[in-house]
């Protein structure tokens, strides 16, 4: 693994169930996360995913990819376009830097109305060693798969 590597995207169907289950699993009973009528009264077209669920999904995206031995060190997320029911969010990740067995991964999550989340995750993956840069003299095409 090296800087520039991209993680395979993960599609998350934003169901009403996911939004409500995520809110309740995070003990977040704000009406905008489960009551469409009250969400509309506050100017939102429908309920929307809470930040804790987004945080959890970003964490899952990283550990799904790096495996159960991976240890999350830091997760920082910033929210933009809300996740409403019926939408799909696509999480993407790109390795920004690798130092020893620790990588910094830039994560984005786009939905049908824009960028829901941008985030930075620091993750330690035991046994992870930086892959040497491709040798330009070996004749094979370079770049990232």
């Amino acid at each position, binding site marked *: 693994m090296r800087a520039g590597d991209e993680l395979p995207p993960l599609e998350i169907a934003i169901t009403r169930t996911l939004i409500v289950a995520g809110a309740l699993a995070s003990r977040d009973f704000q009406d905008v996360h489960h009551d469409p009528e009250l969400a509309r009264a506050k100017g939102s077209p429908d309920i929307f995913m809470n930040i804790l669920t987004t945080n959890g999904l970003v964490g899952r995206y990283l550990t799904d990819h790096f495996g159960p031995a991976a240890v999350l060190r830091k997760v920082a*997320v910033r929210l933009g376009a809300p996740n409403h029911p019926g939408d799909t969010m696509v999480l993407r990740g790109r390795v920004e830097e690798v130092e020893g067995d620790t990588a910094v991964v830039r994560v984005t999550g786009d939905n049908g109305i824009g960028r829901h989340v941008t985030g930075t995750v620091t993750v330690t993956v035991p046994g992870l060693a930086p892959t040497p840069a491709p040798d330009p003299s070996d004749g094979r095409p370079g770049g990232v798969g």
Partner: protein
Amino acid sequence: MDDEFPTRDEDELHTRLKAYEGRAATVAGVGRDPVNAPMIRHWCEAMGDRNPAYTGPDAIAPPTMLQAWIMGGLSGHGGRARAYGELLALLDEAGCTSVVATDCEQEYLRPLRPGDEVTFDTVIESVSGRKTTKLGTGYFVTTRTDIRVGGASAGTHRFRILKYAPAGHDLKDRDQDRNQDGDRNQDGDRNQDRGRQEAARRPRPVVNRDNAGFWEGVRRHRLLVQRCTACATLRFPWLPGCGTCGSAGWDTVEASGEGTVYSYVVMHHPPFPAFSPPYAIGLIELAEGVRIVSNVVDVPYDKVRIGLPVELEFRAYDDDSVLPVFRPRAGEAAA
């Protein structure tokens, strides 16, 4: 998002908000439950997270659950210090009644395991200047929470919310509609009904110290006119002093309810909720000599005319509102 040009009031509000920076939002908070397997399982099911590290005898909690362990839940927070409630109340008063979480930055220093008892302290780290976003205009409030287990640091949690007045709702004068309902959840507020559109109800009367006696009379179906106790001049609408002699002393006389249309307008446009144009608004000269503005009812709007004899009727609107209106006196309608 762009800064707006602040007015002096906004500067003053921001100064008051900034004073909360560095103050404690929660002191010696205790997680509502120890870290536990059922909550971990609910979380993993919701997230679709099948990481085996989160199950079994050596399970750890998903690190991103950090905030879940310090959420107040339905019953709210226990250890919250007054400063945070005050800060949120100031913003509520300014019309910033809605909340959205915008940023969460967490660092995990050691894994949490079932049985761990979480304690935490939260400090108000910063309050931004007034910002206008797509959602509305408001202020970003950033808190930082240190989470410990058995006295050892387990993680930090920096959280940013935007407290805002939803777009289309003006920031209010602060002394209107004080609302200090105290405790809130970590990423939200409780003003669930604020901003909800009433279904086409009439505007409520504005009752104040100077006119409270008038509205109390209306409630009892009496149309009361003020009378100066110094010079006996009648006055309407209600005012704190006599326009003739300047005296502040007054009593009331009850109007007979007889009157005539002194003048009128017919309202065609613009339409207001709860009113269906066209309709007639009369300036009614009461038998006592003072004039009152009200609706002329029970007569087609185009039959209202100057000099039309009318009589008072108290009519109920929207279940809970009684208003004095005027109808043509018997035998006078549509003459």
